[in-house]
Structures are given as C-alpha cells and as structure tokens.
C-alpha cells in the first residue's frame, strides 16, 4: 500500500515539509487557513495572497493536524501546488479566473480524479487509479479550484460515522474521541479542522448533512439530478447526490454553483438552469416566507439539547419576519424503513461490478481456482462488515418471494413520502427539522448495533427518497458539541435553502458575536 495512509504518503511527505517551511511571508499560515473560501478567493484575486501560498498553508495545516484527525487518505501535494502555481501565472498574465480560483478543496474518495487513487474507503479498490475525471472534478478544475487530495469516508458511503472505512476512522475536530458523522466524515472533519475551506461530499441518506451537523458546518444535498453523478462510484443510484461542505452558507453556494448543471454523461442529470444560489445566500431578507416545522421529526429519541437548539433557531427565523407554521408529514416515520430496503437493494446490484476481473483487488487467484471462486474470495476479503451486511440485505429484499413484501412496499412508501412533501409545500415555502436526533456520539458506541446506527439518518432520509434539496447549518452547541438545523425545499428550488440559510446564519452569528466554529477547541 503506497498511496493510502494518513497524510504522510511517500509522495506527499517532502512537499508537505517544504510547504511548512515556505509559508510565513506576509500572512501567517494559521490566519490563511481560517479565511473562508470567499475571502481566500478575494485575497487571491486582489493579489494579496497567491494561490500557491493558500495551498501551502492548507498543506501545512494538514501536516500539523491530520495525524490526529485522519481526514485525508491521500494528499496530492505536488499536484495541488502545480495547479496553484498555474493559477498564479494566469492571474499574473491578466487572465480572468473563476470565483473560486486558487481555493483549496478536499475531495471525498468516492469521486474519480485522474492522477489520484480512488478507494471509496474500501480494500477492494486499494491502489486503483481511475483513468478519467468525474464531471464534478472536471468542473472543479475548470473553476480553478485546487484539489488537495482525497478524504476518508464510510466504505462505499455506507454509514453514519466514518467508522466503516477500511483505513480507520476519522475523528471529530470538536472532540477527537467522537465520530465526525458519515459517510462524508473525512470531508466534514477536513473543513472543521481548517485543513481546507471547502469539501465535496455525497449524500445518499444524509451523508453530507449529518456530518455537517455534528461538525458545526454547512452541508447541502442539492436537488437529485442537479449535480452530475458521472464518476461518482454508485452506492444507491436513485438516491446518491454530490454536494458542498463549507464553513459558511455563502461558501457552500459558491461551490454549489461551480459543480451544478446539466451533464449529458449522466442520464439522471436534469437539463434545467442552476438556481441562483449565490445571490440567494447574500439576500438576507426572509420576511413573509413561510417556514414549516415538521411535526413528525421531533419527540422520542431526540436529544433535548438538540431540540432546544433547533427551537431557538426557529424562533430566530420568526424574529427575522418568517411565518412559522407546523406541518404534518405522517409517512416520514416510515422513511427510515423504506430507505434501508431501497438503498441496500440498489447497492447489492451496483456492487456486483466488484468482481475481481477489471479493476481493484483480486485475491485467491492461484492459477487453479475458477473465476467465480476468485470473485467470492475477493469480495469476502475486500468488503467490510457493513458493506457485506447491506449487500446481503439487498439480495434478500430483491429475492423471489420477498420482493413484494419488502422492496415493492418500500417503493410505495416512497410515493407516500413524496405526496407528504407536496402537501406540506402547499402550506410552507421551506420545511425545517433538526438535522440529527443527537450530537456526535463516541467512536465505537454503535458499531455492533446497526439498527441504532441507522437512526442517525432519521431526519435526513425523507428528502433523499423524494429528491428535493436540503441543507444543514449550525444551530448551536449541546454540551460543547454542534447541533444542526435542516432546511428542506421543493425540487429545483435549491436557492430557497440558501436564502433561509444565509439569513439564519447571519442572525445566529450576530447573536453569538462570531461563527460557531470559532468555539471549536484548538488542535
């Protein structure tokens, strides 16, 4: 294993050390990494900071803290510095650059990028280097974003804690003994630990919003079909959606705008204009907007502190002039059950591609064993416990005799949930709920109890099943740990999330006197 380790990959170590030595010019590294993406881009555009120095500062920060956080699986220091230098040269030549030019980013290891390994947090893809870029990655490159490397995740995005990574768990920067959420835990931890101002995550049942909530960040699942899934290694194709993780609503909007838009390479990509998310994030005026509090996403199983932080955020929305109403979505209580039939069913089909023949691991090929024997052995040693559990569950749910009772019924629940959303949006412009029922739990707490682990996604799953967009942003602290508020909107009204999120963030920051993340302990 040469590419996947903590931060000190053989290729990256000398460059990271050089980075640590090189930064220190006009701005201190610690100050640079605390700039938002918008501030970093503005400083680079104004010539106050070079893209190279921004990148060196991020690499320096990674070298300092990632041994403790373990967000990164692969640091591409040379590639990042080369990209940053090219941006500096183009700026010096007077070329017009994109709004995120020179801003460093951490990429979830489920998206393919040429020149970097893609493991999906799994042994079965260890060392595999894809021969092409995902559309999200080619758009990031076109936007002159600097890709620092690949970050940790639950294996094939299955999990809510990043404990299912074959390369070890990532830790929550607020409390290193706790989970950073999952499956985009590496993405969230990297941003919360100031290793990168931006990250791309993917959300199948809440895997962007739940880690954002427990790490004190902004995370957005765009409308299904709004961001291309080409090059995103599929887990559950009808639910998976890539989206931004950032420290502010405005930064998330800039990243959203950079990656969204129709892609003919993805048959599920929708050919509609990208909603004006950047403008919406800056508007700050939500007077008269109707906010629906979902009655079913509260009560038993919800931590009282999380509920209190949520209630206070809703009061803030009312104080900003929004009209708060209660809405009922009676079938949301069945969403979790439907999800844990639909997602494993799709995963059992999607993961059939890991057959030991074309890419990734092959084990037990002794020259005598047949293809099927090699395939079975490879999948046994290559997949971790949660992946095996879900593949088996999906195989069961799709098998003859059980299909109608499980998978077929789950697809009907999906219809009922979409109808609930449609009815609720007749009474409200956006819906809100806590993002997660509890704050981050200790690492190891739920590894032996899959059903308890699945409850982490209680509030986030309905919008995946119906396809609408949803955002999590920090609502407050519970016992020193972040809690999130979730905002949901109708399909293709992603700008409403940013309108409400931008206004709420500004109000909460003003009340606190600073962004929530400033209260995170020093690493």
């Amino acid at each position, binding site marked *: 294993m040469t590419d996947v380790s903590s931060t000190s990959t053989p290729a990256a170590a000398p460059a990271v050390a050089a980075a640590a030595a090189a930064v220190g010019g006009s701005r201190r590294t610690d100050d640079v990494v605390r700039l938002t993406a918008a501030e970093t881009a503005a400083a680079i555009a104004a010539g106050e900071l070079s893209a190279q120095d921004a990148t060196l500062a991020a690499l320096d920060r990674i070298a300092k803290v990632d041994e403790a956080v373990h967000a990164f699986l692969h640091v591409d220091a040379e590639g990042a510095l080369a990209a940053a230098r090219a941006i500096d040269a183009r700026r010096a030549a007077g070329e017009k650059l994109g709004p995120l030019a020179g801003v460093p980013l951490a990429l979830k290891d489920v998206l393919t990028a040429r020149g970097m390994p893609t493991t999906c947090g799994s042994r079965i893809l260890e060392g595999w*280097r*894809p*021969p092409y870029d995902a559309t999200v990655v080619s758009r990031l490159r076109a936007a002159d974003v600097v890709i620092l490397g690949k970050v940790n995740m639950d294996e094939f995005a299955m999990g809510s804690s990043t404990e299912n990574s074959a390369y070890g768990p990532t830790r929550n920067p607020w409390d290193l003994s706790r989970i950073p959420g999952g499956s985009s835990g590496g993405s969230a931890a990297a941003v919360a630990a100031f290793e990168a101002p931006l990250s791309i995550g993917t959300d199948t049942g809440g895997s962007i919003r739940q880690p954002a909530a427990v790490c004190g960040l902004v995370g957005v699942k765009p409308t*299904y*079909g709004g961001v291309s899934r080409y090059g995103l290694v599929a887990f559950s194709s009808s639910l998976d959606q890539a989206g931004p993780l950032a420290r502010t609503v405005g930064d998330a909007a800039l990243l959203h705008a950079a990656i969204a838009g129709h892609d*003919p390479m993805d*048959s*599920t990509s929708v050919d509609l204009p990208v909603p004006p998310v950047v403008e919406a994030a800056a508007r700050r005026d939500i007077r008269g907007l109707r906010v629906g509090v979902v009655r079913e996403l509260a009560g038993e199983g919800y931590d009282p502190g999380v509920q209190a932080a949520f209630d206070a955020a809703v009061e803030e929305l009312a104080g900003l002039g929004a009209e708060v109403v209660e809405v009922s979505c009676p*079938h949301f209580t*069945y969403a979790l*059950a439907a999800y*844990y*039939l639909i997602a494993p069913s799709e995963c*059992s089909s999607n993961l*059939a591609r890991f*057959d*030991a*023949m*074309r*890419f*990734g*691991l*092959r084990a037990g*090929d002794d020259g005598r064993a*047949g*293809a*099927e*024997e*090699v*395939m*079975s*052995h490879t*999948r*046994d040693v290559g997949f971790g416990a949660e992946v*095996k*559990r879900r*593949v*088996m*569950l999906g*195989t*069961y749910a799709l*098998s003859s005799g059980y299909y109608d*009772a*499980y998978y*077929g*019924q*789950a*697809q*009907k*629940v*999906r*219809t*009922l949930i979409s109808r609930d959303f449609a009815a609720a949006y007749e009474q409200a412009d956006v819906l809100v709920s806590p993002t997660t029922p509890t704050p981050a739990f200790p690492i190891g707490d739920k590894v032996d109890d*899959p*059903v308890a682990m*699945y409850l982490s996604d209680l509030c986030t799953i309905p919008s995946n*099943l*119906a*396809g609408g967009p949803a955002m999590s942003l920090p609502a407050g602290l519970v016992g020193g740990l972040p809690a999130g508020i979730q905002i949901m909107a109708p*399909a293709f009204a992603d700008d409403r999330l940013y309108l409400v999120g931008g206004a709420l963030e500004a109000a909460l920051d003003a009340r606190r006197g600073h962004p929530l993340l400033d209260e995170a302990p020093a690493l």
Partner: protein
Amino acid sequence: MAITRDEVANLARLSRMSLSDAELDALAPQLEAILGAVARVAEVAAADIPPTSHAVPLTNVFRADVTRPSLPVADVLAGAPAAEEGRFRVPRILDPDE
C-alpha cells in the same frame, strides 16, 4: 421473522461472497433485527399506491452516432488485477471437466 444460518449462507452464495463461519453466525441475528425494523413498510403501503423507483422521471440519453476515441486501453488495463496482450486476464471460467 427468524433468519436461519442456512439462509444467510444461501444469501452469501447468491451475493458471491465466501463468508467465514464466524461471519455467518454474526450476520444471522443482525439481518433478523434489521428486517424486523424495516418490515413496517407493509403497514401503510396499500395496493392502490403506485411505487416510485426514482426521484426524477428518467429518459434515455442519446448521442450522435459518430465514432470517437475510447479511454486509452493501456490506462484502463493499468488498473486491472491482471492483463495480457492488451486484454484483461481472468481466471478460468469453465470447469476443467466441461
């Protein structure tokens, strides 16, 4: 509903995974617990409710019928477990007796 160890072994075979005895023993009660928790989908989904398989309506994507370069063969084979003469090399497919 009880999931027997034999059923789990059969699912493993269908899923092309040669699980160990310990894995089969651990998975049987876990799958039973998960299926017990998700079986409630049957409570609400009446016969007259149409199923939804996808969040957005899907249409096929066509491109102009013109030839264009594929990914370079060498790049694709570089990621393969084994390659020979410009092709994927795979273990034998047929039984030696067949």
